[in-house]
Structures are given as structure tokens and as C-alpha cells.
């Protein structure tokens, strides 16, 4: 009853917040309502409320608004309110349109279909096993059938045809759902487990092949719904009654889990993962307080409870191996911590070398995080903070709201890894070589900073770095890296357009188009592909659609080299005028004067009233930009085909 009073009270306050279009309050309260109740009716109430404040969500919370089309062969309608709600809780507003049950083939193949006309940003493809590989249950019935593999191959080929055909006409992001392994079959559990071509084995294999297919389609993720079903419990995942009566693939008790899984799965297509995990030491990285118990007294290693901490350390090490930077933020004596890492090395899953930085002092942690963000040239929204002290956690939540905070459970250290994994912070559908090398690159940056303080003038310092820039096609960056840069570069990004892979391909292949990536190395290391520019020459004008550079290489003239390269290609394509565009955002002030600094004149006449765009232009016949002397350039002639394409067109 207590619960119900609280529930009614929250609903009343959500309604009030919604009627005054206060999106932040409405979402915060909705989160609380769903934590206390989670009844289907409350989820529907939230969905209706959110739909009513969609504009406020977009404008006040900067929720990403996505035109979403659902291609399906099953009933999905009762799940939609759950999807709407989960999406808003992850800061997306989905404007949804649903396809017909039987028309999914036509929708994906026909360029005049409802799907094509809808021009979505995001497409879910939710098909049943019956539609993807309907003959499998029969072919697998004896568990040894030799036609099974061929059937799987044909099924995947059919799906491939659908996906490629759709991709050729649309740059929408795609979520393709796999199949759920059937819970009960005529072979029984023993037969399913032991026979080579049981349905269970066949569906696993099918899912693996579908996932491999999705990796070859740009901007496409495979949604492993079977994994979700297994976690939730297969026995409760489906309600056979509703599947047979209404073709509803899930029990109503699974709607929430399913919707959350869908949102978490598509999210990496639109959002870059966080990059830094800051961990506390005492009662977080190890058990106990180092200052009180000494290096021998802290809990870590193979025995309980030390093994819970060891598990957390190993988890961090795994994150680090795919490019998540680790940092220590701890109130301790630096010398004590160094001693502990030395004495307990055999019991620790990490060494100090695994950390990009350590902030071990008695300073406020908020100040340490700010300092670290500055040193690494990363935004605070790239940070995750893990600490057992509730006061420290609250301080960071209030003072640095962009930072994601995880409170380490002191009394239940075995829960920390699960708590961390349950969060989508570090989700990435693609990992590139640049991610893997990131730790070394950031460490090199610290060394460069040291050299900068010893070198005399700036040019001399930059020359001493022996920087080499290599230009390459954005398609060979590889393309996934180019899209990643577009998705996550904020500070030095002139237009902040989050283009998809297909859109980058369009720049690379269209007449007069340029899609150039830049790779940078110096005597301290290889920074990898760190910059990208997209431009298009039409007639005598080359317009720069996007130009961006990872902030860790700003200030070395690399941005100028990129601009000069665009200019040269534009001249070759017949342009006499270079037009730059700047769209101000909260974060890109560092590059606001980029075009003016390079001799461009602001063009007041072509200001686009519908956007915040500011345009600049430069006469290429008299003032073409030049690359700084201290840079060595490679691959300068590689972008020939765009010039020849202009000649051909």
C-alpha cells in the first residue's frame, strides 16, 4: 500500500512535469516510478507521457531523435510502449513506423516500399526463425541430417540479399535480430546437446553466420536476442499461448528486458563509448584501507575476499586491452601505493603500467578528474568514476554531472564487476587498431608535454617531433575508424555531422567528392588515423562538409595540412573557391576561428537560416592553404580518382 501511495504520487508529479514541459524532471521521476513499480500500465503511462513531451526531450535533454522503422514478421505492437520508454531512459526519442507482417521482403527489396519512403535513421529487422530458416526444425529432427548446413547457408544467403539490397538504397543504421534457440524440441535435452545437427546446434550456427554477415554490412549490428533470452530464462521468455494465438514472440514479463536489450544493442551505432575509467583504490581496487592495514594487509589475490577484487582488476585489464584508459584517483600517499603495487604484484591483476595516469594525493577527487580530463584532452562525458565512498560518489555526481558514477558495494565486493557490466558505457560494436593502441598513444602524449617544456620555440619543438602525416582514403582508414571519428569527435569538429559509413562512401564515390583521412606518427609513436575531411566540388566551388581532428593531435599544424590537402584536390578538380562551414556546438569552441585563422572570409550572404551554420570562403587562385614546414607528408597524390571523376562527369 505504501508502494501504491508512492506510485500514485510519482505519477501525479510526472504529469505535472509533463504539463509544464519539464523534460528533465519527468524523466528522473519516471525512472523512480519504474524502479518502484514496473507494472505494464505504468510503463504505458510513461510511454504516453514521453510521447507528449518528445520535443522537450529533444531540446532540453538533447535526446537523439530517430525515425525508426520496424521490419517484422511477428507481433510487436504490445512491446512498443516498452521500447518508447526504454529509449527515452537512454536519451533517444523514437518516431516509429511498423511494417506489415507479410511484407518484409518487399519492404527491404522494393525501392518504392513504405520503408524506403519513410527514410528512416534506424531500421529494426525482427524476423522469426520460421521466416529466416523455416525448414530447420524439420531438417534437424533426427539430429544427424546432412542437409542442415546447406539450409543454413541458403538462409544466410537470403538474408544477405535482403540486407545488401536495402543497404544499396539507404544509409539507415540497421539492427538485425538473430534467432532464439528453441527451448523444447522432440529430441529432448540430451539429443539436442549431443547430436551434431540438433536444432540447438543449428540455431547457434545460424546466429554465428548471421552475425558474421552483419559485420560485413556497414552500420549494421547483430542483436543477439538468444543471449538475452538465456539470461532472462528461456522458460519464461516466451508465452506459447500468445505466440500461437497472436504471433507474439515474447511473454509479457519479458517485454521490458527485450526493449532494454534492443536499445542497448542499437546504441553503439549512434554513440561512442566512454573512454576512461577512474578507479579508487581502498575498498574498490583492493579490500581494506592501505594506510591502515599496510601492503600485506589489503585484500587481493586468489583467496576470498581478495579474489573478488582480483576479478575486478582483471575486468579493468580486459577493458584496457580494447582501449579503455584506466586511471587511479585515490586519496593516499603516493609512495605507499607504489610500494603496495610492488610488494603485492603477484596478487594483483594490474600493474601501475596499465594506468594512463595516477592521481594519488589528498586533493579533492573532482579536481583530480578535471586535471586528468585536461591532460588527456578528453571531455568529462568520456569518464566513468568508481568509488566505494558514497560521499565521494555524490560529490562527483553533483559537481561533474557528465561523469558516470558507479558506487562500489563495500559489503558485497563480488557484485562490482556485474554492476559495471550492466552499464552500457563501454559498449562498442567495433574495435579498431587505434583503440587497441590508445594507451601507448596517451602515454606518449605525456612525454611530448615534457619535451615541449624543454624545447625552445614552438617551430623548433614541432620540428623535433618529426611528425609524418599520411593521407589516405576514408574508406581505407578503415571505414569503421572514419565513422568512429565522425561519431565521437567533439572539440575539433567544425560541423559535428555524425555521418554513417554509407554517407562517407557516398562522398568518396561521388564525382568531385573527397573523403580523406589522415594518419599521424612522430618519434614517440603512431597516433593512428586521427583526422577526417569530407568535401565536394561542384563547378568552381569546393564545399567542406566535415573537417575534424582528434583533440590529442591539435596544435601541431595537422589541421592545416588536412585543409591544404583538400585545397589541392579541389584545385585539381577545377575549383577556384573553397567554402568552409562552421556549426557551433557546446563543445567545439576550440575550432571556432579555424577558417578565419586560415585566411577565409566570413560569407554573410549565404548564411543558412534553418541551421546555425556560418560559412566562410577562400579564393584558391590567390590564397590556397599550405602545409606547415615541420610536417612530412605522404600519400599526397593518392586521392586522384576524385579529380578524375570530375573530369569524367
Amino acid at each position, binding site marked *: 500500500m505504501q508502494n501504491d501511495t508512492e506510485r500514485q504520487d510519482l505519477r501525479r508529479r510526472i504529469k505535472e512535469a509533463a504539463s509544464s514541459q519539464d523534460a528533465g524532471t519527468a524523466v528522473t521521476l519516471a525512472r523512480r516510478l519504474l524502479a518502484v513499480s514496473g507494472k*505494464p500500465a505504468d510503463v504505458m503511462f510513461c510511454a504516453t507521457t514521453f510521447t507528449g513531451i518528445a520535443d522537450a526531450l529533444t531540446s532540453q535533454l538533447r535526446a537523439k531523435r530517430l525515425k525508426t522503422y520496424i521490419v517484422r514478421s511477428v507481433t510487436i505492437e504490445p512491446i512498443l510502449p516498452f521500447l518508447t520508454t526504454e529509449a527515452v531512459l537512454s536519451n533517444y526519442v523514437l518516431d516509429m513506423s511498423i511494417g506489415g507482417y507479410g511484407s518484409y521482403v518487399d519492404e527491404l527489396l522494393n525501392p518504392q516500399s513504405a520503408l524506403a519512403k519513410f527514410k528512416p535513421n534506424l531500421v529494426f529487422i525482427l524476423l522469426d526463425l520460421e521466416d529466416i530458416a523455416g525448414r530447420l526444425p524439420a531438417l534437424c529432427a533426427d539430429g544427424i541430417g546432412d542437409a542442415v548446413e546447406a539450409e543454413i547457408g541458403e538462409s544466410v544467403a537470403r538474408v544477405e540479399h535482403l540486407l545488401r539490397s536495402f543497404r544499396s538504397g539507404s544509409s539507415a543504421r540497421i539492427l538485425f535480430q538473430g534467432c532464439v534457440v528453441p527451448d523444447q524440441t522432440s529430441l529432448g535435452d540430451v539429443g539436442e546437446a549431443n547430436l551434431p545437427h540438433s536444432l540447438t546446434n543449428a540455431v547457434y550456427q545460424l546466429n554465428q553466420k548471421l552475425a558474421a554477415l552483419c559485420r560485413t554490412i556497414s552500420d549494421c549490428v547483430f542483436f543477439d536476442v538468444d543471449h538475452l533470452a538465456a539470461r532472462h530464462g528461456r522458460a519464461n521468455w516466451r508465452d506459447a499461448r*500468445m505466440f500461437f494465438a497472436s504471433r507474439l514472440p515474447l511473454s509479457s514479463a519479458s517485454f521490458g528486458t527485450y526493449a532494454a536489450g534492443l536499445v542497448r544493442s542499437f546504441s553503439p551505432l549512434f554513440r561512442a563509448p566512454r573512454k576512461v575509467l577512474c578507479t579508487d583504490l581502498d575498498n574498490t581496487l583492493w579490500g581494506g584501507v592501505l594506510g591502515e592495514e599496510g601492503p600485506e594487509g589489503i585484500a587481493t589475490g586468489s583467496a576470498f575476499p581478495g579474489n573478488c577484487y582480483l576479478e575486478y582488476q582483471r575486468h579493468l585489464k580486459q577493458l584496457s586491452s580494447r582501449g579503455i584508459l584506466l586511471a587511479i584517483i585515490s586519496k593516499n600517499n603516493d609512495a605507499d601505493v607504489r610500494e603496495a603495487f610492488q610488494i603485492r604484484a603477484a596478487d594483483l591483476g594490474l600493474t601501475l603500467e596499465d594506468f594512463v595516469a595516477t592521481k594519488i594525493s589528498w586533493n579533492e577527487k573532482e579536481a583530480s578528474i578535471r586535471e586528468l580530463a585536461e591532460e588527456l584532452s578528453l571531455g568529462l562525458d568520456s569518464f566513468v568514476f568508481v568509488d566505494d565512498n558514497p560521499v565521494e560518489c555524490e560529490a562527483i555526481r553533483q559537481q561533474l554531472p557528465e561523469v558516470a558514477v558507479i558506487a562500489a558495494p563495500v559489503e558485497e565486493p563480488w557484485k562490482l564487476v556485474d554492476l559495471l557490466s550492466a552499464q552500457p558505457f563501454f559498449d562498442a560494436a567495433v574495435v579498431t587498431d587505434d583503440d587497441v593502441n590508445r594507451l601507448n598513444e596517451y602515454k606518449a602524449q605525456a612525454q611530448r608535454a615534457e619535451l615541449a617544456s624543454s624545447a625552445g620555440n614552438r617551430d623548433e619543438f614541432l620540428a623535433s617531433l618529426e611528425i609524418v602525416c599520411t593521407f589516405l582514403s576514408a574508406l581505407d582508414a578503415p571505414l569503421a575508424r572514419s565513422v568512429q571519428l565522425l561519431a565521437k569527435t567533439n572539440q575539433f569538429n567544425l560541423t559535428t555531422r555524425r555521418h554513417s559509413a554509407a554517407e562517407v562512401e557516398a562522398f568518396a564515390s561521388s564525382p568531385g567528392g573527397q573523403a580523406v583521412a589522415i594518419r599521424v606518427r612522430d618519434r614517440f609513436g603512431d597516433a593512428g588515423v586521427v583526422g577526417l575531411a569530407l568535401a565536394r566540388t561542384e563547378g568552381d566551388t569546393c564545399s567542406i562538409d566535415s573537417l575534424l581532428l582528434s583533440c590529442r593531435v591539435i596544435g601541431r599544424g595537422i589541421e592545416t595540412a588536412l585543409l591544404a590537402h583538400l585545397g589541392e584536390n579541389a584545385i585539381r578538380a577545377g575549383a577556384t573557391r573553397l567554402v568552409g562551414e562552421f556549426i557551433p556546438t557546446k563543445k567545439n569552441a576550440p575550432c571556432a576561428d579555424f577558417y578565419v585563422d586560415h585566411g577565409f572570409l566570413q560569407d554573410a550572404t549565404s548564411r543558412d537560416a534553418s541551421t546555425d551554420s556560418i560559412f566562410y570562403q577562400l579564393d584558391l587562385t590567390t590564397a590556397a592553404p599550405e602545409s606547415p614546414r615541420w610536417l612530412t607528408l605522404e600519400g599526397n597524390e593518392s586521392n586522384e580518382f576524385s579529380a578524375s571523376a570530375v573530369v569524367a562527369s
Partner: protein
Amino acid sequence: MSSQQVPSSLRDILADVLEISPEEVTPELGVGTIDNWDSFRHLQAILAVEGEYSVQFDPSRIPELTTVSLIQAELIAKGATL
């Protein structure tokens, strides 16, 4: 029948699902009497009611439970406490 009150728990669920105010949920309200109550909304309503009262309706009965009072009667027949 029209004098009969709709129990508040049932009334609130249906109001949420149908996106109407609880006062509009009368015993006579049903599929087709308002635009919002179409066949998909009907499925949503049934699932929400099932979840709330921890009952399961016979699928062949579901299309017949076309008004608030019919749903209410079926719930009582299933032994639910309204």
C-alpha cells in the same frame, strides 16, 4: 449494468493503456466504442490486465472480451481479487 462501478485498479490500467482519463472508463466502454481501442490496443489491454491480476485468459476467449464489463466478469470467473 451501467450503474455498476468499475473497480479502480482495473479502471486505472485501462485508462493507461487506452490513453484516456480514468473517468472515461465505464462498464460499457469497449472495442470500437473509442478510436484508441483497436485490436492491438486490445491485446495490450489484455496483457496488462493479465499481468496486474496474475491470471491468464484462454486465447480463444480474448477476442470476445470486448467491453470493460466482460473483462471484469472474466477476471472474477478466474478468481481474481479486484
